[in-house]
């Protein structure tokens, strides 16, 4: 009897939920520009703008990470924790929950759905797969939950997403190299993980400038997988085979590239690369010997921007569907110890964590202070 009653109640409850869900169609598509456009810049002119119904805070936020196992992801998790402890953010966040689901997309979707069912207000994720999330997007929108994929994006226009423009990073690197090398010469390009969209976009952005009319470059291409070890090995090989280069573009693991050049006795040349602390240390140390460097960064701090975007959306502010976060970059003239790199922190620490236009300013010591044993 009790079971029957329970079933009947559950049926009615789910019917009610379904009816309520059918009535809502969140979020609304509205005209731009969005809130704080200097931080939450629309990706391009065609980007739609979303507005959710404003909810009262404080909010429950979940971060559904994929695999945890490289320094970038660990730093990302620490950054999320440090961000919600900041003075302006803490009152808005009732609870932050972080789970790492591994490389299984089904488990990731399940975790997202679970947090929707638990009544969380915002869910931040790095998608394990660019496709297959239609179900959770549908559920999130039905339940007025703000779902924000960042870094690993979804092929969807129905969900608010946050990233840096990888193509623009390639363009930026190419323009900077041309400025310091000239319009011709022999260039080494160290690429990232093959088949990855980030690698493809950075490469295409880079080539679009380098191969434009008026430039005459010989570009040698090797694959370094964004890992210092791999990038060091392939750079050493490239130097052995091709001799001297006039400039280098190393997508990631750039400190390994520089290490290989030093080991081979290759003279310092202009080099554009990622934002590992080690690379910036090398720039600071050897800039006057000719190591002119440009260091841009795909920052683990994107998680903070994503959380902030979700919190703004929950307060009813208009947000672009695809948010382009400004690329944090420094070169040999602006690199400064204790400010945009840290000589006392490990080489694999990712330096860019501060986004002044977004009012997101988490310092490296704040991130490193978040111990692994800390929970919240």
């Amino acid at each position, binding site marked *: 009897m009790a079971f029957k009653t329970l079933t009947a109640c559950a049926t009615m*409850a789910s019917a009610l939920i379904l009816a309520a869900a059918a009535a809502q169609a969140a979020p609304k598509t509205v005209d731009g520009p969005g809130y704080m456009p200097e931080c939450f810049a629309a990706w391009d002119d065609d980007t739609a703008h979303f507005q959710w119904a404003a909810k009262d805070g404080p909010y429950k936020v979940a971060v559904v990470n994929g695999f945890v196992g490289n320094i970038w992801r660990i730093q990302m998790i620490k950054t999320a924790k440090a961000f919600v402890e900041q003075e302006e953010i803490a009152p808005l966040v009732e609870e932050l*929950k972080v789970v790492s689901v591994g490389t299984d997309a089904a488990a990731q979707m*399940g975790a997202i759905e679970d947090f929707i069912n638990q009544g969380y207000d915002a869910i931040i994720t790095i998608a394990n797969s660019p496709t297959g999330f239609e179900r959770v997007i549908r559920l999130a929108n039905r339940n007025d939950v703000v779902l924000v994929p960042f870094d690993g994006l979804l092929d969807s226009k129905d969900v608010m997403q946050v990233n840096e423009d990888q193509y623009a990073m390639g363009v930026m690197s190419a323009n900077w190299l041309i400025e310091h090398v000239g319009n011709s010469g022999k260039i080494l390009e160290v690429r990232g993980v093959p088949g990855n969209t980030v690698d493809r976009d950075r490469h295409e952005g880079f080539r679009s400038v380098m191969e434009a009319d008026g430039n005459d470059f010989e570009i040698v291409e090797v694959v370094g997988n964004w890992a210092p070890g791999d990038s060091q090995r392939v750079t050493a090989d490239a130097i052995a085979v091709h001799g001297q280069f006039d400039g280098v573009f190393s997508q990631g693991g750039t400190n390994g590239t520089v290490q290989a050049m030093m080991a081979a006795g290759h003279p310092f040349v202009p080099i554009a690369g990622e934002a590992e602390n080690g690379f910036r240390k090398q720039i600071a140390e050897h800039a006057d010997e000719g190591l002119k460097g440009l260091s841009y960064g795909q920052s683990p701090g994107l998680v903070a921007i994503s959380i902030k975007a979700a919190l703004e959306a929950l307060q009813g502010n208009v947000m672009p569907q695809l948010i382009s976060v400004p690329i944090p970059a420094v070169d040999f003239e602006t690199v400064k110890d204790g400010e945009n790199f840290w000589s006392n922190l490990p080489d694999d620490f990712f330096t860019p964590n501060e986004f002044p236009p977004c009012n997101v300013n988490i310092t490296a010591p704040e991130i490193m202070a978040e111990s692994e044993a800390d*929970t919240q």
Partner: protein
Amino acid sequence: MSAAARFVRYNAGLILAIALFAVIYGTYAVLHPNWGLNVVLQNANESLALIFVGMAQTMAVLVGGLDLSVGPLMTLTNCFGSIVMAGSGGSVLAGVVGALALGAAAGFMNGCVIVYGRIQPIIATLATGAIYLGCALILRPTPGGAVNGDIAWAFTNDLNELGLTFGWWEDLGPIGLLPMQALFLAAVIGLVWFPFRATVLGRGCYAVGSNEQAAYMSGLNVNRSKIAAFTLGGFFAGCAGVYLTLQMGSGNADAPQAAEYTLRSIAAVVIGGTSLFGGTGGVVGTIFGALVLRSITFIFRVIPAGAALSFVADPLLQPLFEGLILLLAVSLGAARVLRVKNRLSLFT
């Protein structure tokens, strides 16, 4: 010995797996702030592909081997399904049947390589697994494919939602709340596994797994049983691939994911009470083994922040604790095997 006592004795592994699942999932359900039918549905959705892959692994383990190709085979059928099923109703059916047939065919190939090539299953399937993953990459170099959203949605929800989506029926009452995943699983178990186990071929798998020489001397066709076991394993992996296609609505030749499913399938088999020595256990236990595995990960989502045990849910410590709980669960499942002096006593 009474019938009940005999049932317990023969199914100790299964009963242990069910008990473990009840404890772990019960904890999750109690801690979940909004536990209800939609959460059950979500959990079922998350678990079914792993259950099928675990069932595929069980077949290899029953005949005394390990199958490292179950994850890649699931990925291959997923990619195949995502290509054929993206279209109208007819091609969805064709995709399902085709993917299942592809799975069975690949399993048959595994069996032939092992039996006629006389190669250890673990090595043979390491190689064929790489082949299947390679084929999957050829079919889907980048993730994609779009299975009809309504079909994908309807077949991964409950019966009512299926009727609502296509206008077949309005509300079936309590029956309508049955998750589709349970129906799929019941269909595969009832229409494929139980009939298979009742045949000479099926019983032969158990005989081969417990003692191949004895099975041969008893006049059983050892080769045929082994090939049948791997073929059925391939079919189960195909079921996983088809369900993943419905669930994701797309295909993705994701190598890390394939590897993760393969490893987890072995854990699911062990927790489910199937001996890694072969010859004892069955796919029903594996279902609960897979559910135990999944429930362990569910728990991390609901541990409240202020609780005494909340350090367990620290994001960076989750893999550690997941591993520890897994080790405990596997040890419980295997304890029975370790305790016996003579393996034969497991069968008495």
